[in-house]
């Protein structure tokens, strides 16, 4: 039981790290640009597909990962320049429609280029296999590597946001946009940088998760809405909120799926507990979101309504 708990906790943290990488960019885009971007999940999917393509072409995980990053910059900038840039001073409804259109286009484009069957990405040799944790418990090295890589990126973001000039502008922009333009900053450039940064993070998440997932067209969407929940819980515009929100959502989602039925079995008979558990588990994160919003409508670290 303890072993299972530790195992699932680690799985939760690993999912949380992936969610954080996606949510970090999204929360900045929402907070600083006030743009609803439904197409953010597309970037995560693009990262995974680029990874699969480059891995197949180069035969190397590391070369592929190295190539994904400039690819992500290109995808992010392209999207910003062609579409997102024109949405900044539009109503939220316009933003919803345009980015919804982008999601439809992106999913279909992926199907045309890569087909509908899922792709897989081989794991690098040094990260394959498992390490013993405690007692008989083993944990895959690759998942630990994801956690470490994600934490490193989170640390880097923390430094960027709190100790650099651009980070200062980001923080200012998330709380008071008018102030940033009053400082004489080129808002257009700042927005492009923020969006591209978010795109790179989301693509990176897609790329590093590719070896343990099957890469398919639906992957962006399931993650997109979980990411929304993360951003809403953490508070729009807050990187810290995105981090805590991501880990919270992922751990609740992972543990709920495994331990919900077990706990329910103590009050219900086995089959009822099984059904109730399967029903409740995927709803848990939304119930969590509702409870947090009920107490704090702007999320845990959100300033604006």
């Amino acid at each position, binding site marked *: 039981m303890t072993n299972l708990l530790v195992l699932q906790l680690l799985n939760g943290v690993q999912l949380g790290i992936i969610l954080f990488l996606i949510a970090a960019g999204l929360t900045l885009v*929402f907070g600083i640009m*006030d743009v*609803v971007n*439904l197409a953010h999940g597309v970037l995560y999917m693009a990262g995974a597909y680029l990874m699969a393509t480059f891995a197949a072409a180069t035969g190397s995980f590391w070369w592929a990962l190295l190539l994904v990053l400039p690819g992500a910059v290109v995808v992010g900038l392209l999207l910003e320049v062609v*579409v997102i840039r*024109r*949405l900044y001073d*539009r*109503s*939220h*409804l*316009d933003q*919803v*429609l*345009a980015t*919804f*259109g*982008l*999601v*439809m*286009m*992106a*999913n*279909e*484009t992926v*199907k*045309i280029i890569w087909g509908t069957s899922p792709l897989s990405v081989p794991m690098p040799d040094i990260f394959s296999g498992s390490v013993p944790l405690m007692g008989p418990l083993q944990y895959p090295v690759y998942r630990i590597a994801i956690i470490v890589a994600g934490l490193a990126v989170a640390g880097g973001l923390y430094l960027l946001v709190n100790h650099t000039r651009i980070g200062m502008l980001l923080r200012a922009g998330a709380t008071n946009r008018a102030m940033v333009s009053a400082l004489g900053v080129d808002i257009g450039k700042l927005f492009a940088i923020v969006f591209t940064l978010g795109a790179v993070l989301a693509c990176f998440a897609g790329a590093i998760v590719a070896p343990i997932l099957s890469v398919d067209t639906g992957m962006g*969407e399931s993650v997109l*809405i979980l990411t*929304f*929940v993360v*951003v*809403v819980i953490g508070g*729009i515009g807050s990187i810290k909120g995105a981090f805590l929100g991501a880990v919270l959502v992922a751990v609740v989602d992972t543990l709920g799926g495994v331990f919900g039925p077990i706990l329910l079995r103590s009050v219900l008979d086995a089959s009822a507990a099984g*059904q109730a558990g*399967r*029903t409740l*588990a*995927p*709803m848990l994160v*939304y*119930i969590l*979101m*509702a409870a947090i*919003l*009920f107490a704090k*409508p*702007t999320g845990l670290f959100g300033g604006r*309504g």
Partner: protein
Amino acid sequence: MSDVTTAPRAAPRAPAMAMRVKVALILFALFAVLPPVAVALGDPFMVLIATRILAYAIAAMALDLILGFGAMVSFGHAAYLGFGTYAVAILSSYGVNDLLLQMLGAVVVSAAFALVTGAISLRTRGVYFIMITLAFGQMAFFFFISLSAYGGDDGYGLSSRSTIFGSDVLENDMTLYYVTLGFLIALFAACHRIVGSRFGRVLTGIRENRERMEAVGFPPFRYQLTAFVISACITSLAGVLLANQAEFVSPAFMSWHRSGELIVMVVFGGIGTLTGAIGGAVVALLLEEWLGALTHHWPLLFGLILVLMVLFSPRGITGLLERTGLWRARK
């Protein structure tokens, strides 16, 4: 004080309103003659497609009630469509086949869900509201995916259509079509009355200027929540009809894509007009059918049309309508 006696009795925008009703009546008349035409053309299958369009028209109109008149961009309305479809599946599996009872069940569940999730969502605005309604919609989606007794992800085929007072008249596609049309017309009339009522004026007032409404004594929350619940209930009726049309229910009816398509329908026809939502449902679904016949990669074209529409109307779709005085963008 002599002015008092000559106070205008009707709003000057009444002509635009009357125009919209006229267009709606023309649409209804066209719908009414469609089945005989379809039969004459030897294409009775058209009636079934048209039934689907009418059901979506009801849902789009219900969404317009809050989106167009209340400026609430709900991205979770497919959930209510889903409640309607599953009300048919679940109640009929317990032997309750009556259409009106199934509608009652759909409305009760939808009202409860809308009341709770709406109360939480409406504490927020803008981006938050959109994302939270989307998240709650997804929650409902996952709930039905987990219902293994009703097929889970794969859905559930209905053994028969609903009955009306014990009669199985709806088994006839033509009858189902006209019953659906009847509901569309009745619900249009109801929505039209609501928009022009005291309540509707408050709702529209909150859209136009929330702070001003508070300053004359209206607390916006309760009016917006009421409208949200009404809209949800009407959408669930569309779901009941849709389940009968498809004779099949599945979580796909409530995916977030479906919520997005409902918004697209409202926008295609012009928001805040009711009539527009009906026309928009027709246009959007026919466009889907047409593009689908051209290529099975139709979502690419559909998405492209959406993006181009937003980018190349000078101030967006809402801007387009703003100039006609039907909508004011709020940021």
